[in-house]
């Protein structure tokens, strides 16, 4: 196994762990953090590909993902705060009435 494969395997595993966390955990904040973990996995794969090909496009995309992650947190945290104020709980099941 060479370096690129090892790094990509870690990236893939981080992404799968993050997705697993979003599915199986019931705490809203933990689910948000698992989404961040997925973004981190994607970042690692982008950096690896950028290094492999020697182009800067992957690194630029990583920067844009940083900004997207910051914006995501900036909008997700107020939503979580509002939800918690309404139901007094962080449990995702409590918001099942959003299903419509």
């Amino acid at each position: 196994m060479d370096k690129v494969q090892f790094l990509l395997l870690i990236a893939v595993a981080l992404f799968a762990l993050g997705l697993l966390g979003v599915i199986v955990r019931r705490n809203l904040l933990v689910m948000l953090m698992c989404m961040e973990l997925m973004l981190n996995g994607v970042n690692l794969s982008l950096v690896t590909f950028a290094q492999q090909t020697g182009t800067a496009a992957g690194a630029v995309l990583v920067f844009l993902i940083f900004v997207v992650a910051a914006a995501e947190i900036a909008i997700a945290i107020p939503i979580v705060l509002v939800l918690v104020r309404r139901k007094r709980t962080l449990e995702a099941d409590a918001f099942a009435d959003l299903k419509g």
Partner: protein
Amino acid sequence: MIENLLQNLDTLLLIVFGISALVAAALMLVLRHPMQVAMALISTMVFLGGIYGLLGVHFIAAFQVLIYVSAVMVFMVYVIMLIDVRDPSFTRRFSTLLVPGVVGGILLLAVLAYALWHGLRAPAHTTVSFGLQQFSIAFLDEYWLHFELTSVLLVAAVVAALAVIKVTRKKHG
């Protein structure tokens, strides 16, 4: 022996950082309190920053620590301290989707690993490390529009966050 070790120090550190990042990420799934999960996520991000530094993209390593660890995760930790709700999600960690979720996660990992194993047959290029100069030229030459668009995105996010808080404040008086 020592010289040999020093020559392979990069590879050794890469493996150590990678496995530590994976262990911290796996800990995120089993720890109970959100604060512990946040600490595990922070250590994953720091280890990933170490990997970026070892790969030679130091500016991405710096921004990983500056933006992710200090901005995003400090915000997250503040919110966890702010919301002091003792609720069942602290003691009962997993939702009812635990078994299908684990099966699906393992399947996803297997499919991606298989694709990786068989898709990367093309010989890896000699890893050309690009410096900050090349990155900056590409960033402001080719991708300036995307860069400007992210500022619009950030403004939209800030306005949306304010709107969310204002709407609820109006409703609750």
